């Protein structure tokens, strides 16, 4: 595992691995996305209470899963970067953050659009919605810190600390927000999510896997641009473009 980490820690190696992995993630995610959409939007029967409105679940739940998954991935990458001083791990975390923020935003927008017909209002201070909003602020804070420093390395490592503290804090935030909502309102706003019929469930699971693969597809593209941006002065990047040392210095 350590030799693997060290291999991946080399920018050209990670660049090429990402290049080779991208099409695999792309095609599997697109196929599963198509299958999940057909299963969710056409094959699954309308809900007996919510009619066709429930179908937003196929967007909402996978993005909610991704918003947490990406933060966990960022925290692990940050810890690896801090402990073994792997700059590429920080590059992966930095490349993942805007995607995580995007998934969080999609979750919030889809959730509030779902809330309008079901709860009669776009926003309620529901436990999960509120935690998701706080999560969005954590993503924004991470990105702000990483970009605030003139020196890339300092920004990376400062962001890493924040990601790790945030990942430890996240369960506490969720627990506190849950406690807070039980204090103020009953569970009248809960959706009947515990027992989903099989014909509704399998497209959801397919969508969750498809979203995860989609994330890795976009991540491998973003990691490559991130590497190119960070290593723009390295000789292997210049040789990629077929640019000699003389023209590389023209910038």
């Amino acid at each position, binding site marked *: 595992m350590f030799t693997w980490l060290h291999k991946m820690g080399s920018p050209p190696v990670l660049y090429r691995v990402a290049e080779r992995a991208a099409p695999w993630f792309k095609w599997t995610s697109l196929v599963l996305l198509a299958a999940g959409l057909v299963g969710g939007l056409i094959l699954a029967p309308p809900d007996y209470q919510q009619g066709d409105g429930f179908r937003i679940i196929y967007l909402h739940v996978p993005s909610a899963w991704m918003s947490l998954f990406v933060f966990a991935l960022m925290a692990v990458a940050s810890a690896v970067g*801090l402990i073994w001083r792997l700059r590429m791990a920080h590059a992966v975390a930095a490349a993942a953050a805007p995607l995580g923020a995007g998934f969080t935003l999609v979750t919030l927008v889809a959730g509030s659009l779902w809330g309008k017909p079901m709860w009669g209002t776009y926003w309620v201070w529901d436990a999960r919605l509120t935690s998701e909003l*706080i999560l969005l*602020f*954590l993503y*924004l*804070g991470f990105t*702000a*810190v990483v970009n*605030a*420093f003139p*020196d890339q*390395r*300092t920004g990376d*490592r*400062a962001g890493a*600390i*924040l990601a*790790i*503290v*945030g990942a*430890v*804090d996240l369960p*506490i*935030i969720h*627990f*506190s*927000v849950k*406690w*807070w909502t039980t*204090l103020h309102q009953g569970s009248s706003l809960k959706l009947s999510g515990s027992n989903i019929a099989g014909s509704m469930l399998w497209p959801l699971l397919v969508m969750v896997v498809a979203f995860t693969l989609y994330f890795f597809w976009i991540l491998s593209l973003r990691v490559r641009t991130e590497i190119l941006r960070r290593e723009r002065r390295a000789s292997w990047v210049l040789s990629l473009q077929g640019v000699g040392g003389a023209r590389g210095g023209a910038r």
Partner: protein
Amino acid sequence: MVRELLRRELLIAWRRPGEAMTPVVFFLVTSMLFPLGLSPEASLLRPLAPGVIWVVAFLAGMLGLQRLFRADFDDGTLEQLLLSPRPLTLIVLVKALGHWLVTGLPVVIGGGVVAAMLFVPARDVATVIAGLLLGTPVLTLLGTVVAALTVSLRQAAVLGPVLILPLATPVLIFGAHSATLAMQGRSAAQAFEALAAMFILAASLLPVAAAVALRISHES
């Protein structure tokens, strides 16, 4: 060394009282705005009081954070502390304690005064103070991590609160509702247990994070 460091922190605050007093003055002034902005009615202010006190205490806690490490960073004291044979975690913990004694404790006491002025019943003022006593150190410790991260940045005063406030939401929730529950005659034990747990967690883990953050800031 621990005692000298704490003495130094308190002495600096004593010599420059204006800087150290800013958070508590801000706390009192801002709390005064709520009756002016809402209504002087006791029936309206009383249920809002715990929330108002905690939110304003949070904002006041953001104010003084720059003084934690900035001056030491500028004049090179921080470098000496980093070179010290004592564990940096301990040094950070002592600095956080000094900062809390200077800026946090006055807000805790001021919180009792404001609670009384917002018509919180006398027997529940103690609950407000106890909650603040457990909650504001957690806020200071979170602030220590972020102040250590951003000590070399010029825009730290703006960036800091944006980073701390989302992380600190559990403290706000349990803190404000411990007082609200007590005022409603319900048991606040759960909230206090959560506050105490967060205090222990913060005091044991966050100084480590702040120490690492200081080293990162210093290396740049």
